[in-house]
């Protein structure tokens, strides 16, 4: 019996196929919808406070505008042949059985209105092509089901035309925002970033205090003065990391890992209080303008601090925006050192150092952990690391393998480009969507269960702040311990050899106890 087998409400039965197709359960998730943003929140982002009187007309107008501004939106609305290849690819469908969570059906909620208003057949023969007017019911469906899409792009991998439902969801949310029906969670957070600089609304003073506390912890642990510098002008590197890294578990352990890496190689680095957030929720609501405004903070911070490089911490969609869009939204970054990629991922940085032999590990420090790795969706399918396609899969694994002895991948059709979303991405990481979050996590939990059974895996590493929060919240429901989820740089932090660090017997002792508790049945032992 492994500790992962404890049962819970939604617990995963033995060896259930993560890809098993559920029976159709029409409209079973129709009631799932997030809280609507209050007028103040909406207005701060430049949207109408509440649903405007002529919302139908305005929504159609916006739809037309977006079809003219985004080729993806236009081409995808026209091109789908309803082949059905994507129907069983969405984790929310697999977890809920609601057919409106099949990617093509989700698109169709919007496509039927597009056809009615923008195509010849839809105007004159709506019954023939399934075209429909935008009614209140349709709007409600939009609000429900476009907030049951985490914009993870799994469907786009399998669609013969690469149709990306995320693009449709983003457009739908932008249309809804523009008529005054926004989502509280995302829009409130974007407002906080505009005001304070991070998703949590953590002000510079609080941030400074937090970092100082962490420095003390580091000193207690290692006996070394490992720094977490804030707003230090003239540093070489500016680290932009999700604000969850400053206070949430297991995120903090990742942050400590970055600090140790920087310390060990003597890098000059700093965090910025002005750009104290890697996440960019402008992406989730499909708003170029909001995404740009958030990105410009990073540019300004880099200029004000006079840094030479920008490095991003572990976060999925943040890395998408950083890798794929930052140059577009806030570039060109010609004032930075062009010998390094702009921006760079902390994993690229650490991986380079490992390759060059500049950091070394004592892998045995992680022997109490048998690890697997969850490819975060936005890193896997919307970005890259290193200079070869697929580096986003290899580099994190290379780091993990360098830092621990026991690493096992989950089933091939559930990782890398076919990875699932954790269930909480795309602006869904809010308590009012807990039901769909848990259902969406099911395929990943089943895949994890398999490696736990097959290889005695005890922990899963993730590379995204949202994944980490989501998993620590939903794992107990599937019978896993909430701290079975770890940061990549937490594994680094555990095992990195720091010059001059105290070899700490107390820590050793703690490790051993953890060891015994957490060790699964030895390999090959019968249950």
């Amino acid at each position, binding site marked *: 019996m492994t500790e992962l087998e404890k049962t819970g409400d939604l617990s995963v039965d033995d060896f259930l196929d993560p890809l098993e197709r559920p029976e159709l359960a029409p409209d079973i998730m129709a009631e799932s919808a997030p809280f609507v943003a209050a007028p103040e929140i909406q207005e701060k982002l430049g949207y109408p406070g509440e649903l405007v009187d002529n919302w139908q007309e305005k929504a159609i107008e916006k739809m037309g505008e977006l*079809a*003219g*501004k*985004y*080729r*993806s939106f*236009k*081409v*995808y609305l*026209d*091109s*789908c*042949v*309803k*082949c*059905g*290849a994507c*129907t069983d*690819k969405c984790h929310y469908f697999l977890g809920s059985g609601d057919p409106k969570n099949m990617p*093509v*059906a989700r698109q*169709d909620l919007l496509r039927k209105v597009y056809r009615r208003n923008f*195509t010849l*057949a839809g105007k004159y023969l709506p*019954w*023939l*092509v399934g075209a429909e007017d935008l009614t209140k019911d349709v709007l409600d469906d939009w609000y429900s089901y476009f907030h049951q899409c985490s914009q993870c792009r799994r469907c*786009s*991998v*399998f*669609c*013969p*035309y*690469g*149709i*990306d439902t995320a693009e449709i969801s983003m457009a739908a949310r932008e249309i809804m925002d523009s008529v005054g029906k926004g989502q509280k969670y995302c829009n409130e957070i974007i407002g906080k970033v505009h005001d304070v600089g991070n998703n949590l609304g953590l002000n510079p003073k609080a941030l400074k205090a937090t970092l100082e506390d962490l420095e003390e912890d580091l000193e207690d642990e290692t006996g070394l003065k490992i720094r977490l510098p804030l707003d230090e002008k003239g540093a070489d590197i500016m680290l932009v990391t999700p604000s969850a890294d400053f206070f949430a578990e297991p995120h903090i352990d990742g942050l400590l890992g970055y600090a140790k890496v920087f310390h060990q190689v003597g890098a000059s680095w700093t965090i910025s209080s002005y750009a104290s957030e890697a996440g960019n929720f402008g992406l989730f609501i499909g708003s*170029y*303008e909001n995404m*740009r405004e958030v990105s410009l903070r990073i540019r300004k911070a880099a200029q004000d601090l006079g840094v030479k490089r920008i490095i991003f911490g572990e976060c999925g969609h943040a890395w998408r925006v950083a*890798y*794929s*869009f930052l*140059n*577009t*939204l*806030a*570039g*060109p970054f010609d004032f930075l050192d062009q010998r390094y990629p702009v*921006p760079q991922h902390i994993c690229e940085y650490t991986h380079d150092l490992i390759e060059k032999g500049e950091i070394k590990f004592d892998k045995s420090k992680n022997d109490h952990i048998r690890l697997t790795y969850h490819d975060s969706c936005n890193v*896997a*399918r*919307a970005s*890259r690391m290193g200079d*070869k*396609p*697929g580096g*986003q*899969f290899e580099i994190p694994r290379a780091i993990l393998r360098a830092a621990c002895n026991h690493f096992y991948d989950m089933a091939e059709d559930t990782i890398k*480009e*076919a990875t699932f979303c954790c269930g909480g991405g795309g602006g869904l990481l809010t308590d009012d969507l807990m039901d769909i979050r848990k259902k969406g996590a099911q395929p990943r939990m089943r895949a994890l269960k398999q490696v736990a059974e097959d290889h005695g895996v005890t922990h899963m590493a993730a590379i995204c702040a949202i994944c980490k929060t989501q998993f620590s919240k939903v794992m107990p429901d599937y019978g896993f311990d909430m701290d079975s989820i770890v940061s990549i740089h937490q594994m680094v932090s555990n095992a990195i050899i720091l010059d001059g660090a105290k070899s700490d017997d107390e820590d050793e002792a703690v490790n051993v106890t953890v060891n015994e508790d957490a060790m699964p049945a030895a390999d090959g032992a019968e249950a």
Partner: protein
Amino acid sequence: MPFERYSLDAFRGDPKKHPLIERGWERRQVITIIFALLFYSATAILLLGLAVRIRTYAKTPAPLKIPTTPAPTSKGGVVLRLLREVVLFKSLFKANKWIWLFGWVFHFALLIVLLRHLRYFTEPVWFWVAMMQDLAVYAGFAMVAGLIGLWVRRMVVPRVRYISAPSDHLMLVLIIGIGVSGLVMKYIMHTDIIALKAFFLGLMYFDWQPLPEDPVLLIHLGLVALLMIIFPFSKLLHAPGIFFSPTLNQVDNPREKRHLAEWAARLEASEGGGG
């Protein structure tokens, strides 16, 4: 290849003197005119409709880099990626083996069947078109079989039935109808191929020739014209669409090369910030 030639001028002169009339083929004349006009308009609608669509797709900006990764890092890589999708349906293969099998067989057979039809439009027939005639016979059956497979799936798999509108069924019925009527002419009720070829060459050179009056042929041609007409207004736009899909056709190089859409550049200029 011997076939009767009638001059277009004959229609313009004294109608009673036109060879068609002299032989008392008045109904055939009407049918010929109807189908000639039908094919001219269908061709015009298909080509113009597609041209307008393609122009719109080409002119609509893709403001952000959104290739589905891992993606190629060079233009050549993108060409290969698109080729793999267009020729092999690679993503579909990853997704679902049945849809892939039926869909790929249908499309590949359709391609062969279409090429085979070139013999009605070329004189002398290009040698590679002549060479593939034998192979093409199987293609006709394969095409219909693939389509029936797709249609059965559409009816029996609950997920696919759920997402199907009447037009999705009818589109398959239409193409099956084209395929079956074609096979019927080939194996059961032969038509006058020589006259048919004369008709199409006549259309191409604006020198109309009579069309055989066979009902099966007329059904076949009527359905083909219908398909051509609805092409630019239906989901058949997937054929040009795939080449404009940003997730497939973008190069993965956002860090190396700044990508900026025109409207985004205007936004930047109006708001300041950026570089």
